[in-house]
């Protein structure tokens, strides 16, 4: 594990690095109660003085690249999980270096030397049986002393249940374990696997496997060479746009071929051939089978890292991706949900996103608010849900009652309404005027005066062609929804 430093962070100011949660912070921000993993909004409330930087994974991958190269020089076949975290199979290297201790010491020493050259923090090294145990061994190591775990089962049994969260999510399941009186992975490992399978299904079995040190799935299937995909370019690719396009194309082709074979990859090897003849390769690994988006992201991070660090002199003339660690997990059907449909739907949404852009494929989540337009928190499909702007559980007196209008303009639309003695009589729809047959309201909507909002009145106007939700403010009428 390697902590990364943002080169664009102001050196003398407190800094917070976030995506939807805190991924990094300076010491002075941490001292006011901000913790890594804390929701972004909470962290910003606790440290309003901090400069907020949005996490850039591609840039982190570029910064991490020299570290990966250094480790790869010592031990071949490095598996990069995410920028800052990599796994290295050490079975062969242990014999070469004379034991796990000397190997870990050698890696730590090299990393220490690199720390002097690179802007980065501490490098943590852990050795254990399996990636999950090794990751937490590294987390409990110090920069001075690698953590070599002699008894992996014993080490895992002392870990808190929350360590499962990073590997498999399952927040609700972890809460249920705690409610059942379990607190460590050892408690979980003591339960019969069949019981967990019948109560929690596949996630329960996976949690038990992790707790008992069986996290790496063994899949004896051979990898047919034709499942790998490659592209050659007559003109070397040098621009990032061209490289991104090629990477995305190749990733899609790879997964399409694998789907036809009924398998999904947990590990892929990205190989590029430079115009000057050299070849670079990197292995990326994922606990879950790679989806198109996940694979495309990783291929893009890797290619960008190589291009920006001048790792492919003269440009890219060949690109290939080879899958490994194939499993049938991508095709596993669940009892209550149609998993295969879910995978196909994800692919369809990713394709729509590619055609339209990420801002056009959206998911909504209910949040609090008085107007229909306020009560939906939008997030891009495939990205973490955005934080609530308004608390759903707050009472929201005066909220527009259900049924909700099915059409809600993104912004209030000016609309012509004719009034007679304060009562609505006609509404203009396109080029014609429709008489208002009946209405409800006005309902007062008190604006946030401290934010410059004004009070307004709401009306539900019923015409012979439908009903409309209107807002009237300072004598002007606005359309807020159509009960279509």
């Amino acid at each position: 594990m390697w902590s990364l430093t943002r080169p664009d962070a102001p050196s003398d100011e407190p800094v917070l690095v976030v995506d939807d949660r805190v991924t990094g912070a300076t010491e002075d921000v941490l001292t006011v109660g901000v913790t890594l993993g804390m929701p972004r909004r909470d962290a910003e409330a606790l440290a309003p003085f901090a400069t907020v930087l949005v996490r850039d994974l591609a840039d982190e991958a570029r910064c991490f690249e020299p570290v990966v190269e250094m480790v790869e020089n010592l031990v071949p076949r490095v598996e990069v999980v995410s920028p800052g975290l990599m796994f290295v199979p050490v079975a062969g290297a242990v014999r070469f270096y004379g034991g796990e201790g000397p190997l870990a010491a050698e890696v730590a020493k090299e990393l220490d030397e690199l720390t002097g050259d690179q802007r980065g923090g501490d490098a943590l090294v852990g050795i254990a049986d399996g990636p999950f145990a090794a990751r937490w061994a590294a987390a409990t190591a110090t920069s001075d002393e690698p953590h070599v775990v002699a008894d992996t089962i014993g080490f895992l049994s002392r870990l808190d249940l929350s360590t499962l969260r990073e590997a498999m999510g399952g927040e609700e399941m972890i809460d249920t374990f705690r409610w059942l009186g379990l607190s460590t992975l050892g408690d979980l490992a003591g339960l019969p696997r069949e019981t967990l399978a019948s109560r929690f299904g596949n996630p329960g079995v996976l949690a038990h496997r992790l707790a008992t040190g069986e996290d790496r799935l063994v899949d004896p299937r051979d990898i047919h060479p034709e499942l790998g995909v490659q592209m050659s370019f007559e003109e070397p690719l040098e621009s990032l746009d061209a490289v991104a396009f090629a990477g995305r194309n190749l990733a899609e082709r790879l997964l399409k071929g694998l789907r036809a074979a009924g398998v999904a990859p947990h590990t892929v090897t990205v190989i590029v051939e430079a115009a000057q003849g050299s070849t670079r390769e990197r292995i990326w690994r994922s606990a879950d089978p790679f989806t198109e988006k996940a694979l495309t992201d990783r291929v893009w991070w890797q290619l960008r890292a190589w291009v920006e660090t001048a790792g492919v002199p003269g440009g890219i003339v060949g690109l290939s991706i080879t899958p490994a660690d194939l499993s049938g997990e991508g095709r596993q059907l669940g009892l209550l949900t149609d998993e295969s449909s879910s995978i196909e739907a994800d692919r369809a949404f990713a394709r729509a996103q590619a055609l339209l852009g990420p801002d056009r494929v959206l998911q909504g989540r209910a949040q609090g608010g008085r107007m229909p337009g306020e009560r939906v928190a939008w997030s891009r499909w495939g990205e973490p849900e955005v934080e609530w702007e308004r608390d759903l559980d707050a009472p929201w007196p005066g909220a527009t009652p259900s049924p909700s209008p099915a059409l809600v303009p993104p912004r209030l639309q000016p609309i012509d309404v004719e009034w007679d003695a304060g009562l609505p009589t006609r509404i203009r729809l396109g080029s014609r005027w429709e008489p208002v047959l009946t209405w409800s309201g006005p309902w007062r909507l008190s604006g946030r005066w401290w934010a410059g909002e004004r009070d307004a009145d709401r009306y539900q106007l019923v015409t012979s062609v439908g009903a409309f939700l209107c807002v009237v403010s300072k004598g002007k009428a606005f359309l807020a929804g159509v009960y279509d």
Partner: protein
Amino acid sequence: MGIHGVTPGFAEDITTPLPVQYTREEGFLHLQPGRVTELIGAPGTGLTRLGLKLLAEPSRVASVVALDTRGWISPEAAWETGVLAERLVIVRCDDLILWPKVTAALLEGVRAVYAEVPALIKDHDLRRLTGLARARKVAVVMRSMGNGLPTGIAHLRLRALGVTWEGADRGHGKLKKRRLVLEASGKGAAGITRRFEVEDEGTDAVRVVSDVVIDQARRSVG
């Protein structure tokens, strides 16, 4: 007591749950895989809500999508009609060139689609999409933003004839219940044009009132 009493012999008949069996009209409100249902009617007649309601049943097992050409569809109305929030994706596309491609991409992977069809989409694009929906067994609801779909596309056509609202009364109350009079036609209606009424109270329960006399229903329009 006499006022609130129940005539002996009737109470049991009323409270005994009926076996789940759709009437013909209720069947119109359940999508069929590989078939296109067309909704015809002016904005404001409640067809968007009806189209979203049709996605509720498929959303229980897989993701569903609403293809929004105006950028106005509110998922809140869909949630109220029973569509599962985590299974509903809204795709916004107002580009005439991209619309057929995006729709085709969605038909390749989604079980049910509610699609607003831009007015100027070419007939042959719609026919190809219908063929794709049939091949992929995707249930599709289409609502044309123009003058309706060309012939031969829709298996079932639901035309809104009128909408009435209850609850609002010259400033008092609030919109509470909508009655939508629909006319079903096409192969899905066995070639017979049928009229029926749908009651929508803003929840996921939509009640079908069969065999309404249309003149009587239109009497209270508005």
